[in-house]
């Protein structure tokens, strides 16, 4: 059959609408990039003691001219604050993109790596590796890699357990999904708590770090491990954008439209486990970013994964970097665990979403 499209008199109107649509997306993207850049700048400029908006430039000058070592403040900027801000951007992006894609494959806006226990699984993997591998001579140089791999393994185990627990007759029921998440979260919390007390002296610090998250230990090595991993995950998920969009129609419809649904779901689960694993390995459990960010984007922009993947990465990064600045400033010189902040913002959001869903789906939830 010939499928050449007939030329319709309204082509002009259509094209101008498409143009306006494209311009809107471009403005959104530029706005997000602008937000990310300004928050990055702020994050580097704002310190516990004072705020100096020229500081990033000064430190960069010292870094280029080789005078970095002689200036303590500039050294702090280059080796502590900058990687910390970058890490916040990366972790936020990883969590937001994971949330957006998990919501896609379970076709429900309530999915979030924290709520589903994926973050806890990653934390268990990381804690186990830290406690038992510190005795290995290799831990000296391979430590961060080993911890990342263990966190990835933990995240993958949690992801697939939750996923298979939630399957009822081959379908994912979001209620069972969240309940499975509750179970895995409880189990992992207990394991982390228990393990933390084996390492007695650091026990409390460890619990705080893993259960409430922190970006305080960020360094350039962490950035170097996380950035390419996240880049790969975002790229791979972006490539699945059409499939993710089609899954919004329901699994049967997606399959009838040509999506190899089982394969796509498996790939997305592995990719989110990878992103969450690496994020958690360096920052502990930070909740709700994956829930809040895609929700905001769907409300102000579009459900289409063509935009949602990249926009989630940008907004997730910006939001977490902002939260990190707040966590440093609110009770300075002490630091508020960042997970507390994100939960404070995220939990009401979650409740709101629940109410919205209850209204729309009735007993479905």
């Amino acid at each position, binding site marked *: 059959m010939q499928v050449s499209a007939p030329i319709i008199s309204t082509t002009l109107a259509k094209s101008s609408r498409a143009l306006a649509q494209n311009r809107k997306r471009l403005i959104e993207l530029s706005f997000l990039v602008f937000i990310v850049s300004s928050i990055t700048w702020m994050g580097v400029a704002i310190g516990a003691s004072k705020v100096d908006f020229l500081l990033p430039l000064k430190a960069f000058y010292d870094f280029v001219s080789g005078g970095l070592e002689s200036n303590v403040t500039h050294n702090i900027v280059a080796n502590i604050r900058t990687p910390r801000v970058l890490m916040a951007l990366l972790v936020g992006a990883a969590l937001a993109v994971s949330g957006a894609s998990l919501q896609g494959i379970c076709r429900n806006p309530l999915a979030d790596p924290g709520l589903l226990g994926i973050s806890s699984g990653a934390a268990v993997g990381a804690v186990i590796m830290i406690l038992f591998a510190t005795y290995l001579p290799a831990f000296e140089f391979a430590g961060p890699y080993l911890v990342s791999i263990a966190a990835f393994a933990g995240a993958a185990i949690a992801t697939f357990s939750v996923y298979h627990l939630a399957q009822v007759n081959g379908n994912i029921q979001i209620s069972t999904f969240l309940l499975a998440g509750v179970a895995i979260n409880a189990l992992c919390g207990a394991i982390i708590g228990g393990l933390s007390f084996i390492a007695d002296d650091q026990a409390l610090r460890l619990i705080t770090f893993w259960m409430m998250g922190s970006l305080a230990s960020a360094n350039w090595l962490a950035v170097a491990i996380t950035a390419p991993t996240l880049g790969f995950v975002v790229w791979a998920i972006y490539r699945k954008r059409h499939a993710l969009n089609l899954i919004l129609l*329901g699994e049967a419809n997606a399959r009838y439209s*040509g999506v190899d649904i089982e394969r796509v779901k498996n790939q997305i689960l592995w990719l989110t486990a990878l992103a969450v694993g690496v994020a958690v390995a360096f920052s502990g459990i930070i909740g709700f970013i994956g829930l809040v960010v895609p929700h905001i984007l769907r409300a102000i922009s579009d459900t289409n994964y063509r935009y949602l993947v990249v926009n989630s990465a940008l907004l997730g990064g910006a939001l977490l970097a902002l939260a990190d600045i707040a966590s440093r400033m609110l009770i300075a010189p002490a630091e508020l665990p960042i997970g507390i902040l994100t939960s404070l913002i995220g939990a009401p959001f979650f409740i709101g979403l629940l109410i919205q869903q209850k209204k729309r789906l009735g007993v479905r939830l």
Partner: protein
Amino acid sequence: MSLRAENLTVRFGNKIVLDDLNFVCSSGEMTAIVGENGAGKSTLMNCLSGALNFEGLVTLNNRPIKSMSIAQQAQYRAVLPQHSTINFPLDVREIVRLALALTSLSHDDQEAIINDSLKLVDARQFVNRDYLKLSGGEKQRVQIARVLAQLRAYDHEHSRFLLLDEPTSALDLKHQYAILSMLRELCSAASMRDIGALVILHDLNLASLYCDKVLLLKGGTLIKHDTPRIVFEGSRINDTFGINVFIDSHPDTQQPYLVPRI
């Protein structure tokens, strides 16, 4: 070109849900699948669409459907399931555009196909509305438009099949007629000789008025597959559905018209 079933059998455990079905549906033909609840209509649809495993053979344009990849199947047949639930806000245009998501069509070609498909189901007027806010019948028309768009999404010389599970269940009377006559035209139109449709219907009169063939199922077996005039014979309908009908003929088309006796 055809959609063919040979010795098609489906078992759920020990229960035989479809029992050794053999039939051929040609392109250019619109076939109604009718039968009482639990007769195996949807199961048959799932087999023909490649979603359900079965014994025997189903071929699409002489190729076994089991040997085709999911992406290939999508190029030769489009399926409308009985229910489609969407949980995210999408406007009508985006829903229909999803049918073209896996193709490499240009934006203008996509727009043309989307507009044509929406026009066929009388849904142009709500093209920019939020799908979630539509009525049940409007949603059903949009889903039909999406499936029609999928039929035109791929460029090849082979015939395409539409598999529709109760496409008229949520429609008002006017749109029941409009959609079915549109489908019939689509199948019989000279330029579209290579589209065939299989439609699950509960209203036997609609089947009689609009379909070229009727495939009558009972308890998983094929009772009769022929034109409405032959299939809709009083005693056969009475036996299959367990009701008492009087068979009249439609004043305009002389097709059988079923009147239940009270």
